[in-house]
């Protein structure tokens, strides 16, 4: 469909690259003796978790590290020319013209105040390419090549006025402006919905076919496996393993690679299907929930329409949907923070929320609130910034009237339950890691002895290995405390191992529901099929079965 002019033949070669940072007199080595090479027409993936040094490596290749960074290498060359002694001026000639750079999220990676056209245009003016007219022409061409239909109209739009897929394409067009032989893509699909990820993946493949050498930086082995010819795994600044993608995935040599692979949620088996006991009553029941907002032109747009769901004791109901599917609004209605326009919610067999004006007030809900706990994607913002772990737990325990004398022992027990050391009790969550924060959030949720926990994207902000740990913890806790989860996520892989029942939402409606195993193995709705396919893991490293 899209054609790219073929890139010139060349090579990028790195030998023993080390990057050190000096901060306040302390030197910290971010990258230790990294060596690899990239030739045209191939995709190399640099994989690792946060702090692995992959991003620093990418910036070192463009000379974009701060002044406090010390870069050393035996060789850092492009087409045989060393970049090591480059001045800022020389670097500027390389950036954009020889090596293009694609960042994660076009919403912030393109100047949010300027149109995408102006941004791409600037990539040309920076290298004094062409005249004003030829430049405009070229920008249009680039946008079209990157797969943006009606580019002529969209050239004047800003990134935030484009859909997620289109704006990522615009960002790629920006990197391709000077037709650089090499591209560095730093997490090019991370913030995107699965269906869009697939499209971008295709685009990158086309670029490879056109002869561009692409270095992909990613935390996601699954994504990389479909694309890369070779994979380099990094851990704490060291390269732990390098090899052809298929080899590395099938026979990982290094223990860290294995750990990483095991942690991939998509690699886990679905939870065995246990049918719902027909005699049990649902804990939480929602019927025909709808919610709409007024639009500019006066019409109403439905965010959520006719959603019904039932959550049974000891089970996990996962709600899956892409951004804008209405899953967050559903969650807010279930939490009682948003009144539904139609329908009703019952909790513990009693009315919880009603669309019509009835006697159900916040005050009447309050006594039952501890039975419905919640954990969020960003646990930090759900903690009062002044509070330590102990105050947070203390506050939660006070809700269910635990006597003051018992609170400390209960807090310690809770920390133990979420497998945190008791030494964290005096700390402020700000100084903890992402995984630890989410565990604190879980501990707080457990403190009020809930029957149901609403998990709103609880692992989306975490590294893969941490994700696995948190999911494991949630699973264990469910068994031990007979909890019910309402699990909201955009990622099918995440719920694979924890969901009993599944609801798939699209544009405010439920398009498919059933047992998790059924849906994962036999998706019926085309959108669900697409989602399941996007979540497909590794097994097929070439990933060519996408249409």
């Amino acid at each position, binding site marked *: 469909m899209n054609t790219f002019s073929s890139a010139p033949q060349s090579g990028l070669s790195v030998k023993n690259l080390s990057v050190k940072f000096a901060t306040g007199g302390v030197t910290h080595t971010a990258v230790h003796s990294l060596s690899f090479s990239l030739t045209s027409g191939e995709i190399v993936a640099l994989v690792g978790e946060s702090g692995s040094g992959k991003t620093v490596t990418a910036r070192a290749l463009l000379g974009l590290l701060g*002044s406090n960074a010390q870069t050393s290498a035996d060789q850092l060359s492009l087409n045989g020319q060393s970049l090591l002694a480059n001045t800022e001026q020389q670097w500027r000639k390389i950036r954009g013209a020889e090596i293009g750079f694609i960042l994660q*999220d076009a919403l912030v990676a393109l100047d949010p105040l300027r149109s995408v056209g102006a941004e791409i245009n600037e990539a040309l003016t920076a290298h004094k390419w062409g005249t004003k007219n030829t430049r405009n022409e070229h920008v249009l061409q680039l946008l079209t090549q990157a797969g943006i239909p009606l580019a002529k109209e969209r050239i004047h739009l800003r990134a935030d006025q484009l859909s997620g897929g289109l704006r990522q394409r615009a960002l790629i067009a920006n990197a391709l402006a000077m037709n650089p032989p090499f591209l560095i893509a730093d997490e090019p699909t991370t913030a995107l919905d699965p269906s869009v990820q697939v499209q971008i993946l295709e685009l990158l493949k086309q670029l490879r076919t056109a002869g561009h050498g692409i270095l992909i930086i990613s935390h996601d082995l699954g994504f990389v496996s479909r694309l890369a010819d070779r994979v380099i795994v990094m851990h704490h600044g060291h390269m732990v393993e390098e090899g052809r993608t298929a080899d590395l995935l099938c026979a990982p040599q290094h223990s860290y690679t294995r750990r990483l692979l095991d942690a991939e949620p998509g690699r886990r088996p679905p939870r065995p299907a246990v049918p719902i006991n027909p005699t049990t009553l649902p804990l939480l029941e929602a019927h025909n929930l709808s919610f709409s907002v007024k639009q500019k032109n006066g019409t109403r747009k439905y965010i959520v329409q006719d959603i019904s769901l039932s959550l049974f004791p000891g089970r996990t109901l996962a709600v899956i949907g892409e951004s804008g599917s209405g899953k967050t609004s559903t969650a807010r209605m279930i939490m009682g923070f948003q009144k539904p326009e139609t329908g009703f919610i019952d909790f513990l067999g009693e009315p919880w929320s009603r669309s019509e004006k009835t006697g159900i007030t916040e005050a009447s809900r309050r006594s039952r609130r501890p039975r419905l706990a919640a954990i969020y994607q960003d646990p930090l913002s759900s903690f009062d910034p002044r509070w330590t772990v102990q105050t947070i737990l203390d506050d939660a325990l006070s809700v269910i009237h635990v006597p003051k004398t018992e609170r400390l022992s209960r807090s310690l027990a809770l920390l133990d339950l979420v497998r945190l050391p008791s030494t964290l009790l005096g700390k402020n969550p700000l100084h903890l890691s992402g995984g630890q924060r989410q565990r604190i959030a879980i501990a707080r949720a457990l403190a009020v002895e809930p029957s149901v926990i609403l998990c709103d994207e609880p692992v989306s902000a975490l590294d893969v290995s941490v994700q696995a740990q948190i999911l494991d913890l949630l699973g264990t806790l469910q068994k031990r405390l007979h909890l019910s989860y309402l699990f909201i996520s955009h990622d099918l892989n995440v719920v694979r191992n924890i969901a009993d029942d599944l609801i798939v939402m699209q544009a405010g409606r439920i398009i498919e529901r059933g047992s998790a195993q059924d849906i994962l193995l036999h998706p019926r709705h085309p959108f669900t099929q697409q989602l399941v396919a996007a979540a497909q893991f590794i097994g097929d490293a070439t990933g060519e079965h996408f249409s």
Partner: protein
Amino acid sequence: MSATNSLPLSLKPSPRLWLPGSQHIGLTLAFLYLTILILAAIAPHFLTHGNPYGIAPREAFTAPCWQHPLGTDQSGRDMWTRLIFGARSSLVIGIGSILLALCVALSLAIPGAFGGPFAEQCVKWVFEILFSFPTVVLALLLTALFSSGTFPLIVAVGIGAAPGYGRMLFGQFLTIRHAGFIEAARSLGHSPAQILTRHLIPNAFRPLLIAGAMGIGQTIIWASSLSFLGLGAPPPAAEWGTMLAMGRDYIAEAWWITFFPGVAIVLTMLATTTLGRFLKNRFETTTS
């Protein structure tokens, strides 16, 4: 997202490499200055043996010398002694008017931020109105009402500064109101009263403290500019703004009468700003 938008903390380019040291020096100097200022306000005799009100016409306009390190004024009074004695009224005015300003600001910002959409709109209008009404007029009218002196000055500056702080606090309260932890507290089953006392008020107190510390210097400047216009404490009070205003006729002959009170005001402003920044940084490292 496991890969964050920004670089890990340790990798951010840090131009402030040498700064912690200099910041430290600045903070130390600020604290030292404020200590002297407070000492001067509480026990001026500890720092000078002179009489701030005793005139000596024969010694008028003496340039800085051994006996009078900062010179003497138009009535032959020792400038150093007058400055030391002026610290009290400056601090009283600065702290008094910032407290008043914050009280007024709070009484607008709290109902505005927590009192529903109608109150929010009303408070916005009130800010608009107050912003367009010049402080000087207010100060002049107040001095006309109460005759000039420290009290009307505090009231004028306090009320004049209130809308600025009000709008700032208003914004911050709105942020707090919409913060995730408020919803988290609700979902735990806390009552609105508990949320107010446990979260809203304590969290609102921090910006208040920072605004207060940063504001003292600013209110001292405002107050001194009103004293400069002749609306300050009556003579013979040693007030920096008045001293400066009285000296400006003689700047060609005796620059020190105008210069040193100005230096005192500027140093106070810098010291309180440094203090405010310090508090802000401290709170922010424990906030986000």
